């Protein structure tokens, strides 16, 4: 069965410092991986996805993610954090068992960026 793990409940980082939010996955076959962000009382906003190709994927708002097949990881990164990046981040993997892209989400990581 497909699954995603986000090992950190919360990540704290100072504004201007680089940030990393971790995600590991378990899938059969090639993984299709996604990152979404959720602000309070808002739905999920798409940040980026990995389907195939370059292991470094660039997305919205300056975020990027690195796909590492040997470590089964897809960590989200940003070179310089902003206070406005504070939000809940979800990693997801596509479950194709039904023949379409149902998403399996991790439990989420809360990012807190301090001034």
């Amino acid at each position, binding site marked *: 069965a497909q699954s995603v793990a986000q090992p950190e409940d919360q990540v704290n980082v100072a504004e201007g410092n680089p940030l990393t939010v971790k995600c590991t996955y378990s899938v059969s076959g090639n993984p299709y991986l996604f990152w979404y962000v959720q602000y309070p009382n808002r739905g999920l906003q798409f940040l980026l996805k990995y389907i195939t190709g370059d292991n470094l994927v660039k997305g919205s708002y300056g975020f990027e993610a690195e796909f590492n097949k040997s470590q089964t990881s897809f960590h989200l990164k940003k070179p310089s954090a902003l206070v406005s990046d504070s939000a809940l981040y979800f990693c997801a993997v596509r479950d194709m068992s039904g023949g379409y*892209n149902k998403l399996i989400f991790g439990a989420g990581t809360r990012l807190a960026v301090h001034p």
Partner: protein
Amino acid sequence: GAGVSQSPRYKVAKRGQDVALRCDPISGHVSLFWYQQALGQGPEFLTYFQNEAQLDKSGLPSDRFFAERPEGSVSTLKIQRTQQEDSAVYLCASSSRGPFGDTQYFGPGTRLTVL
């Protein structure tokens, strides 16, 4: 263009009441998904429509949950005889049909509180 919209944004129901949650997907999007997000957790898949056909309802927690998309556009998730454990945010997502890993775009969600 307009994104996915959901209504109502907030719903308070007494235990035993029936509720109906509406989703308006992005115009032209073939695929529509419903997810349930319990407090402090990641979204969990409920059901999937391709146009008007409900192809997967494996995530619906009980036979009290029913979803429809009669004309292949607007969808309604209905919960009969609500219970306290139904309290959650219900998210709708839509995606266009494509060959690989189409991005799902989420609405703001409906927060259901069952008293």
